[in-house]
């Protein structure tokens, strides 16, 4: 009995410490599931903006994976296959305007992986979201991110040139101040077009619910607007997010807190910018025309750079909603989500500390001592 026969050793080779059951999600399944849930939005981007945007996506991914390979080669640890570099690259591509010169996302990817991720110790140890850091880095380094890189989506009718080369958000931001009207109404006056699909749905809603919606919301919701390759389709991103929620890969806290808080702030204070006072902001315009949906489901939920306790997640989401709105409306950049997240990343350790509850059996003793 005391001697273990070699036969039995071979027969039951696994001698591990408990637990012997493990939950199904692993680093690999998580990373790949997130990547897969982004595919519909990626496809939509390519259909809508043309083949060149596929080249942008691929360039971002390939350079991120190559950078990870470089790191693996240096550290002699294989992590390339865990899917996290692929995902970072994909997200950088998602955040690029469709006509961006190829070298920009490539630089962004290398920056994200080499500087933001690897330098802090690799997956899970970085305190800043690598994809966003990469995006913001190239945004500040090359001013091309705005200007001529935008493209009119395939399904939007032709319109005045100066407008088709800008996102609705930047048009409203740069020219819509103090106009006192709804954002889409304003865009229409500027000569912005909308699709027949949008016209039909808007008419349908207006007539059946007695509303007076201007055209444009439905185009914005499905993604028929100019914008970054992966950001435009709120619909497909929300579906992807629901898939992740159903798979229990993300929890509802951040997306819900973020979106609700963003909508509330935009509604209450958003009207100030156009001179129409409090409680008149066009919240859904802001929600569907920028990167908030992508940010809420995919960027802010990045595990390494978000808080860990449910309470902390909600605080984080609410603050993100506030800062995104604040930067977007009062800052000098049209897009607030990326900066808001990077800014809030700094406070994650603090939020964790504040929301940590006492270990089991300590709450009582403390009270008793009082």
């Amino acid at each position, binding site marked *: *009995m*005391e001697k*273990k*026969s070699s036969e*039995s*050793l071979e*027969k*039951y*080779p*696994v*001698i*591990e*410490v*408990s*637990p*012997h*059951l*493990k*939950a*199904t*999600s*692993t*680093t*690999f*399944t*998580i990373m790949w599931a997130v990547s897969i849930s982004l595919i519909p939005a990626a496809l939509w981007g390519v259909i809508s903006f043309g083949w060149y945007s596929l080249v942008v996506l691929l360039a971002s991914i390939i350079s991120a994976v190559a950078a990870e390979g470089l790191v693996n080669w240096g550290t002699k640890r294989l*992590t390339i296959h*865990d899917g996290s570099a692929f995902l970072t690259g994909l997200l950088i591509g998602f955040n690029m305007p469709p006509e961006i010169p190829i070298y920009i996302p490539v630089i962004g990817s290398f920056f994200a992986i080499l500087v933001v991720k690897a330098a802090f*110790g*690799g*997956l*899970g*140890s970085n305190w800043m979201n690598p994809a966003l850091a990469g995006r913001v880095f190239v945004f500040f380094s090359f001013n091309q991110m705005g200007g001529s890189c935008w493209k009119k989506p395939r399904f939007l009718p032709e319109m005045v040139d100066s407008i088709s080369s800008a996102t609705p958000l930047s048009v409203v931001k740069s020219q819509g101040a103090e106009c006192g009207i709804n954002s889409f109404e304003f865009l229409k006056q500027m000569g912005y077009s909308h699709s027949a699909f949008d016209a039909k749905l808007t008419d349908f809603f207006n007539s059946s619910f007695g509303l007076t919606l201007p055209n444009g919301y439905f185009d914005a919701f499905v993604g028929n607007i100019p914008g970054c390759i992966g950001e435009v389709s709120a619909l497909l991103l929300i579906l992807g997010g629901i898939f992740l929620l159903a798979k229990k890969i993300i929890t509802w806290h951040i997306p819900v807190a973020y979106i609700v808080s963003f909508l509330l702030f935009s509604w209450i204070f958003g009207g100030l910018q156009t001179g129409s006072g409090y409680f008149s902001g066009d919240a859904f315009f802001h929600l569907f025309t920028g990167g908030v949906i992508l940010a809420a489901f995919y960027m802010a939920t990045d*595990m*390494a750079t978000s*808080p*860990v*306790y*449910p309470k902390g997640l909600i605080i984080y989401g609410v603050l993100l909603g506030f800062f995104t709105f604040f930067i977007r409306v009062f800052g000098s950049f049209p897009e607030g989500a990326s900066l808001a997240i990077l800014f809030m990343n700094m406070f994650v350790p603090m939020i964790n500390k504040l929301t*940590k*509850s*006492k*270990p*089991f*059996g*300590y*709450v*009582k*003793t403390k009270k*008793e001592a009082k």
Partner: protein
Amino acid sequence: MIKVKSFGRGGVHPSGYKKLANSKSIKRLVYSGNYIVPMSQHLGAPAQCLVSVGDEIKEYQLIGEAAGFISANVHSPVTGKVVGLRQISLPNGAVSNAVEIEPDKDFIDNMSSQQNDNSDFNLDEMPSEILIEKIKAAGIVGMGGATFPANVKLSVPKGKNCTDLIINGVECEPFLCADHRLMLEKGDQIFKGIEILKKILNPDNISIGIENNKKDAIANFININAEKGVGCNIQPLKVKYPQGDEKQLIKAIMGKELPSGALPIDLGAVVLNVSTVHAIYDLFYNGKALVERVVTVTGDAIANPSNFLVRVGVPYSFLIEQAGGFVDEVKKIVSGGPMMGFAVLDTSVPITKGSGGILCLSKSIVRDKHTTNCLSCGRCLNACPMGLSPAMLYKLIDSGKYGPAMKMGLMDCKECGCCSYVCPAAIPLVQGFKLGKRMGRK
């Protein structure tokens, strides 16, 4: 409708796999080979061996004497002859002295027909000190897995008072259903056992906690309780691991958190497992010292998952054989439940007082997980029922900082496995904590 309770923070919901064996009635197994009886079947000091090779011994004869306050007597499971004394390694890795007994042939032949119902036991005539004394003499320990001597739990220290007697019928570990079957088939006996405990402890409330995946057992207990008028509170609990842990069960039933380092009795609680209560019944009504228990033999790699009533000292291999052997390639054999049990290499290890189950798992259940960097995902923190920070603790232990880890509450970790269960990076957290505790104590 009765309110379904649970323990609040943390916890996980692994698949139950209870269906494999929970409809199989308990079957008595008679084993005619040599019995290997370890002296260490309980928490605390191993018993002192009282026999030597060549001794003729009787069933229930004391063969190992408790060595200290936290220790327990060991009795012979069979009538026969001592043929060897040696050291064996137990599934939990401990090395123990063991007595090898060759059973008497006549005894084995009559074993299955044994019936001794000591109906002249009169509870009213027994003072509670004598009851506790007898429980101690019979070597009864907690049979839910922790194997803490029962008499120690029942001896309420001076100045303390037992207000709540909690009977643990939770059986939160996946796969296991020995307690479930016991509650279905031996409900009457368990209630007789509870009456004995009531006499000893004189508690204000008696609660029986049962998880909601055992609805039939709950119904059975509600019936018996009404019939006998014992006045127990049958408390259905939400299915959540590790509800069967003493601390979580007290929290679920009494709503109180046991302070770190305190004993249940400090809150007025005494918690005993249903199978321990059944053993106490068996002692007083049938005169049996603790030498047998119900063991669930199950898993997806076993032909015929079963619940066996079996004596201590029978090797695992015999139970596996009686359950039809393997149908699939076995990847892992586990002694106990899948969350806290021990993987065993050698199936000649014997059943002990604490063996609740033998699991034979194929590779479709024991998935290989590839360890990656910690993702800082926080899943472990939210799963930990003790409110610890497993990821942080592990990082400290990994870099040899045992002192700071102890300060962060390493000793409050009960190795329940929730953190390792959820960790997507497959970091061997529990393994680290076991190591850290050992190193930290030094």
